[in-house]
């Protein structure tokens, strides 16, 4: 996904069915926002950032998982299962990069070293995501605020929450197993990366006060202390 050139204005789908108006909070220049008006079940479309092959791969995985029941009683980590949301993210034709205002204004003289840094599209949400609200985005999602229980964030890339993450999150929703979920307080109801699903343990459990990051290691989702620099080095190298 890193190699994809398109950093053109993507569409953010901020679904809040109970509230039919456009949200001014997330209307920024670089990102088109669009409220899904009315009918649910409508297909959510986003311009492509993921190569078609990868999407296909994701689909196949989902089909395989469909054959097994999703919910499991035992253990903290549930086996990989189907991703219902992923169906709703449909990729369209890639558009040539560097044509939007954003590109020419913000990223001038984009050199090869910048290419190495530049990740694909990211959306910034500067508010609390509340119960019943759902953010779906083809790219990375950064929330400056909390993600409350009963809400949902689905992203094809990484998810970063600068606050408490207590809802359901799905990173790498199109099958990217390298996607991560990081939060100041990582206490998700359910955490999904690609086709892996984990859930919070039953009963009381420790809730650390430091930032944590979840990623897939050796086929299991692991949660560890977020260490600055670690990611930086691996990415550049």
């Amino acid at each position: 996904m890193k190699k994809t050139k398109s950093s053109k204005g993507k569409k953010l789908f901020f679904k809040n069915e109970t509230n039919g108006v456009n949200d001014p909070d997330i209307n920024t220049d670089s990102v088109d926002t669009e409220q899904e008006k009315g009918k649910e079940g409508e297909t959510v479309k986003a311009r492509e950032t993921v190569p078609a092959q990868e999407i296909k791969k994701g689909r196949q995985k989902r089909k395989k998982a469909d054959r097994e029941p999703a919910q499991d009683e035992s253990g903290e980590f549930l086996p990989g299962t189907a991703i219902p949301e992923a169906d709703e993210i449909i990729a369209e034709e890639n558009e040539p990069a560097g044509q939007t205002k954003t590109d020419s204004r913000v990223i001038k003289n984009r050199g090869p070293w910048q290419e190495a840094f530049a990740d694909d599209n990211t959306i910034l949400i500067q508010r609390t995501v509340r119960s019943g609200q759902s953010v779906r985005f083809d790219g990375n999602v950064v929330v400056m605020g909390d993600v409350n229980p009963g809400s949902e964030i689905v992203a094809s890339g990484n998810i970063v929450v600068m606050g408490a993450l207590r809802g359901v999150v799905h990173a790498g929703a199109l099958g990217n197993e390298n996607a991560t979920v990081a939060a100041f307080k990582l206490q998700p109801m359910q955490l999904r990366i690609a086709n892996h699903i984990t859930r919070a343990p039953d009963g009381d459990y420790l809730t650390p006060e430091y930032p944590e990051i979840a990623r897939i290691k050796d086929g299991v989702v692991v949660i560890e202390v977020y260490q600055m620099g670690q990611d930086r080095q691996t990415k550049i190298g």
Partner: protein
Amino acid sequence: MGEVIVITSGKGGVGKTTTTANIGTGLAASGLKVVLVDTDIGLRNLDVVLGLENRIVYDIVDVTHGNCRLKQALIKDKRFEGLHLLPAAQTKDKTSVTPDQIRELCAQLKKEFDYVIIDCPAGIEQGFKNAIAGAEKAIVVTTPEVSAVRDADRIIGLLEAAELHNPKLIVNRLRPLMVKRGDMMSIDDIIDILAIDLLGVVPEDEMIVITTNKGEPAVLDNNSRAGQAYRNVARRITGEDVPLMDLEAETGLMYKLKKLIGFK
């Protein structure tokens, strides 16, 4: 072939979800196969009350839209083998499903379960119409307040219009001492207005708040008076003849204190 029971009230906050969770757990505790269906799409709570929120992957909208099979969406309870939950969706709204879809769903569920218990949303609109579509029996929950009883009366009328005859009544959050002082409607007052059969009386109980927050239904708590009342209701549903519990019996801290210092 099971029975489909809808739990409704009209007014919000009278305890439909609590009642659904407790009756369902009570029935499952006696070894029956029970499925609880949350039709409160957009404001789902039943999963939280049962402590199963973190297990939800698919919901009722996914089932009716064909995104998954019914079996995949059913969540097995962590305490009882026979208890299952079909959760509502949180990011959709009531118009996501139609009464016909719910009717079809109930027909499928009752083939496999002894009891299909539907938690109805508050109100008399689309959500209510969805919830009662597949039901064969109805339980109306009310509290001893004029407003709740008024709404219950309206609901009973709507249930009859929908060919759901002889609904049963549960009076929730009754405070016997207030009734005694004449500050609260009594059971007789309520039945006088609603004129339907009484299925149970549940006293006000702090344990309900505690158990709801913990995600453990009160029926499992032997010290809870409300839990005892719900156990009785569950037994009555299975056809047992259980007398109403003695609500006058005092419990709680004051009683224990009085007993301790010899007032009683």
